[in-house]
């Protein structure tokens, strides 16, 4: 599946809910399916800055695809990073670099997109793209 298709899939899933509680409950559920980062990578260098909770992200190349693992000490943040990783993981770095993130808006998490928001969703997206940029140069 392409990033676009995955985003569409997430949008459809979230469209089933008509109130915020169900959306957040689902997000918390998704957090539990997050591909967890190995303990050895849970180091300060892998922490994403700008979050009130701790978020660690690690990236590894599998063939020409980039696979992400992550964790957070806050449950909602874990849900958010799980959605991002589901969309961006196992894609070619160039696809990740070019992908837009409008789907965040469509699944009713727009408020998390503000750069001043303490959960650092914007920082997370930036970090995933930075990994993609770094590995893209490796592939070239």
């Amino acid at each position, binding site marked *: 599946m392409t990033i676009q298709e995955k985003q569409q899939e997430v949008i459809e899933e979230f469209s089933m809910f008509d109130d915020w509680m169900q959306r957040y409950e689902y997000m918390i559920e998704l957090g539990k399916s997050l591909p967890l980062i190995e303990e050895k990578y849970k180091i300060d260098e892998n922490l994403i800055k700008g979050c*009130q909770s701790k978020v660690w992200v690690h990236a590894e190349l599998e063939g020409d695809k980039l696979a992400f693992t992550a964790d957070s000490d806050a449950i909602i943040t874990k849900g958010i990073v799980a959605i991002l990783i589901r969309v961006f993981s196992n894609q070619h770095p160039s696809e990740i670099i070019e992908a837009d993130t409008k789907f965040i808006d469509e699944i009713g998490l727009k408020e998390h997109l503000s750069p001043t928001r303490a959960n650092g969703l914007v920082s997370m997206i930036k970090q995933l793209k930075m990994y993609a940029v770094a590995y893209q140069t490796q592939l070239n």
Partner: protein
Amino acid sequence: MRQQTQAKTFEVEKIRKDFPILSRKVNGYPLVYFDNAATAQTPKQVMDAIVDYYSGYNANIHRGVHTLSQEATDKYEQARIKIQKHFNAENAHEIIFTSGTTHGINMVANGFASLLKKGDEILVSAMEHHSNIVPWQMLCEKTGAKLRVIPMNDKGELIYSEFETLVSEKTRLVFVNHVSNALGTVNPIKKIIEKAHSVNAAVLIDGAQAAPHIKADVQELDVDFYVVSAHKMCGPTGVGALYGKEEWLEKLPPYQGGGEMIATVSFEKTTYAGLPHKFEAGTPNICGGIAFGAALDYMNEIGFYEIATYEHELLEYATKKLKEIEGMKIYGEAAEKTAVISFNIEGLHPYDIGTLLDKMGIAVRTGHHCAQPVMDFFKIPGTVRASFAFYNTFNEIDLFIEAVKKAKMMLQ
């Protein structure tokens, strides 16, 4: 403290009508504003003062001969007198307008740079806001003075006996907050000031968190410096006041150079203006200062004794209700505290709780509250902090408790 002895009936519903923001909705729910320790809401009376200024007599002060300038100057200086009277300062020129508490602290720290030498000691409490730690660290770096910390106990109270042993002939300055922003603890500042004065050390009290609840009497306290922010007491942001004893303000060099703060200027020599203008370089926040005065009028009209009594009832009620929730841990259980509750629920991150409360229209603060040393002391990443004001209600506390329970259920 100057307080009346008899409480009037507290008409909270009538008071709430003064605050237009309190009737708005957030995420479809009625707003419950419990982030008063971060900033208080603004009553119509203060907004009116702001509108009156801009629609009636907006002009630069202290230098115009025209009517508007005179009117603005008069109102601004009247506001200074209101602040003087409120804190019972001996002289109006002992009140310096600032941009807020942080500015006031930096002004004093900067002034002391020329008065300290290597080996001198500065004492700060373990429960300070970052704004009351960083300026002193910078001052220590500059002067070679040493920063020493007054420890606290598990209840979040300063250990006075430890403070007594820290005080010595080397102590030149003591900085303590009147009330801790993270814990709500009311510190025994009168005792601290007396002890510090026994070795001729100066004392600066950060009154930012106390001023909305307690009317400090700077003469009775015999404090050397007391700093506050207007926005914590129903005034606008970007304005505050530094009270300083005349003798200290005379001793300290000016903070910034510019207009307003000079008497005469030539390229050879500038003589500084007298107090308070020596510390008020440039065009000040004129409207903000006037609105600060209006906010003090507003709060005094309600009465600080009445405010404190009512808020204490809210605090006791909320504390009791929160404690009924399983896994609840409250940080800061000092015998004397203001209407602030810092808490965590076992196994849950404060950020998660805060996010879900916001979805239910409830505004609280989460995080380290700019007091990381306090968080380190309790070995936690942060807390959820609910802080109440006199316009909050018992019904809002019930909504808050229900929302906390709901959030807990969703997260577990």
